[in-house]
């Protein structure tokens, strides 16, 4: 008996929610083989799945390993599905381009990596500059890559001032309106974000996705 298309979508969705990285790719292929169009698989299996992962995280049921596994499984499925889109001459509309990194003087990057994973899983194109990134490099890269958002991570009270320096550099170059700046990291608060003139602040990797979406929807950041 041929499985229902719904079963394929459900199996893939389940795999992503449970963070089964090795199974998500093959399940996406199966769904395509069953004749489902890639866009439908993305919209009806992958997107709701990653949203469910986010919901479980926010509810406290999921923790970092589950969140990352979910994002990884999503990535595996999306690689297959985007390839299929490309060969049929279609492409997925990017949710936006983000240049992300941990600021100068700071070498902590687990939090930043998480945000990058969640953004990617949610359809953003992410250029990750790593940790200990100089102020100028953020701006140069954003210009070159025609980014929409610059996302800055800082894990130390002493280094979060470098988030401010990025905003200041953008202002002095007259580029402040060209890019949205979002900030995050353990010592960073919404108040601090507002004070330094950032456009958005996310408390967690899941929040970061909705902040980024809001910023590009022209509705402004969390604190607008």
């Amino acid at each position, binding site marked *: 008996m041929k499985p229902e298309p719904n079963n394929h979508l459900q199996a893939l969705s389940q795999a992503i929610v449970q963070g089964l990285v090795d199974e998500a790719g093959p399940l996406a292929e199966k769904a395509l083989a069953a004749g489902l169009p890639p866009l439908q698989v993305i919209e009806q299996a992958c997107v709701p799945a990653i949203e469910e992962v986010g919901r479980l995280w926010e509810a406290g049921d999921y923790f970092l390993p589950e969140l990352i596994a979910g994002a990884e499984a999503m990535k595996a499925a999306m690689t297959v599905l985007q390839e299929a889109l490309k060969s049929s001459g279609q492409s997925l509309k990017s949710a936006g381009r983000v240049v992300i990194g941990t600021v100068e*003087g700071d070498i902590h*990057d687990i939090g930043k990596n998480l945000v990058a994973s969640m953004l990617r899983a949610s359809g953003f194109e992410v250029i990750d500059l790593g940790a200990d990134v100089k102020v100028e490099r953020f701006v140069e890269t954003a210009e070159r890559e025609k980014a929409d958002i610059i996302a800055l991570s800082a894990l130390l*009270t002493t280094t979060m001032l470098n988030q401010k320096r990025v905003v200041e550099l953008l202002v002095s170059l007259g580029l402040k309106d060209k890019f949205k700046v979002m900030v995050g990291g353990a010592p960073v608060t919404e108040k601090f974000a507002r004070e330094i003139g950032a456009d958005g602040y996310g408390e967690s990797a899941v929040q970061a996705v909705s902040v980024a979406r809001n910023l590009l929807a022209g509705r402004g950041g969390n604190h607008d």
Partner: protein
Amino acid sequence: MNKVKLKFLAGAKIIKAEASRGQTLSRVLFRAGLPIKLYCQGRGICGRCLVEIKSGRLPEETEAEKKLRLERRFPPCFRLACQLRLHQPLTVRIPDDLLLLPEIKSLAGRFIGKDQTWLRDYNPLVKKYVLQLSREDLSEEERLVSAIKSGLGLKQLALTPDAEHKPKSVGASRRQFTAVIYDDRLLLHLEGGRTDDRILGLALDLGTTTVSARLLDLVQGKPLASASVANPQAAFGADLISRIAFAIERPGNLKRLRRAALKSIAQLTEVLAREAGVKTRWVYAVCLAGNAVMNHIFLNQPVDSLGRAPFRPAFLSHEPVPASEIGLRLNPQAMVFTSPNLGGFVGGDISSGLLYTGLPDKPGNYLYVDLGTNGEIALKKGKKILVASTAAGPAFEGSGISCGQPALPGAIEYVKWSEGRFKYRTIGRKKLSGLCGSGLLSVLAESLRAGWLLPSGRITTGRSEIPVAPGLTLSQLDIRKLQLALAAIKSGTRLLLGTAGLDWTELDGLYLAGVFGSSVDPAQCIAVGLLPPLPRRKIIFTGNASLAGAEMLLLSGEARKSAARLPLKVQHVSLAEQENFQGEFLKALSLGRRYWRKNDV
């Protein structure tokens, strides 16, 4: 034939021993397991190692003994253990306070095992010698120094640069003087008359949260009083990074932090002196163990470099500094030094802790873990020591946890799941007020066992909290914070082991220092996965190892030598820059013993 039979009376014990002909008594005592305090290191000048010959034929006196007997007029049956050479059978009484062993017991703390004795020698940092000096000796500085140097048999002797207290200023009419010597190399002062029974040392642990101090009698080598007080710098920031941020923010802030620390040290010193019935001006030496940020502030060094990668300290070790220069009101000639820094976040608190355990000079593989807001880990393998720090956050100190609190009376320090409920014990058996670090760890371990918690850290009950005691629950968010704190230590430990190419099964011992009080149960530490599942006997709790280490640096010359060598042996590892840091950290978030299972193929 060439052996001499000896009988030692020590306390209530009679110990029989044999010596080779011509050996000194102090050497034989050391061999017989009765090491004694050799104040002048066996040079026969201090006259402090007097033992009583109860029976046997007395050997001839050495020149040193003759000279001392003339001066001090003790009866002929009293002899210097460092000078007396054995040729005939003797029965010797060893005064109790001459033995090194009782101090080992009282100083070594409650948890460190008996076999972990650390006081390998007795050589206080400051010593006093009573001298007869002639008018000529006192006429010239050079002559005086050379007279003292040869009189004391010292290889070198320099004067403190402090001109106001040059020994010349002592009234020349008196003939008897007491020379105050620092580290067998520096003449701090020449005091008129006999003052050699008054020498105190101050051991300090300047912690981010708590300042602890212990006053020591450097003549007897015994602690007189201890006390601690909350670090008043907390008003300028709770953790180290926020203190650095504050210090950098505006000129003058570093000074404010420094003044706050000095004020609390002055208060503690006053309290201790009062309690011990002594004067603060009898304190001639201070040893401070503090993390790098604390000792930078203490010594008025810039902290900027400690607040950003690569987190380099401005100094590792330093020459002793006059206490008057620091701003501590003790003896005007008192000197201060700090236990060496080993890296930006591996400071003097860790070096002193390591010295306390004796780990740097011990054969074998050892791990040293200090649990605090900043978790420090040291791994000794062969001759090398790898050190690293990891940001565990304040969860172990009960901070940021809904029902958490510091380890004070009333805090739950231990729980056991039995008959369907948590049975708990509070510190001092006082009325329940919250959970401290060891209690939190205990709840995690027992919740796992009772099935309240999954290894992923999720509460299984379908509820969002674990009821621990009436009115006291641990929330899912609390557990997440504890998981992060545990993971920082666990992953750091494994990465360090990996860097050294060592498996935890190859460890000869693990020292656990820091905030956990007496109550932490090693089995529970293993059950939550904080520590690798080593046999119980290999896990050693050190208590406040930093303070004990500072104390040891004041009392033991070997410890000071070891401290001087330590920075050269140490290699600092930056955990966050390790390639597999993230993977290791994520794996370490799971609770339980599984993390330490071998997964190599």
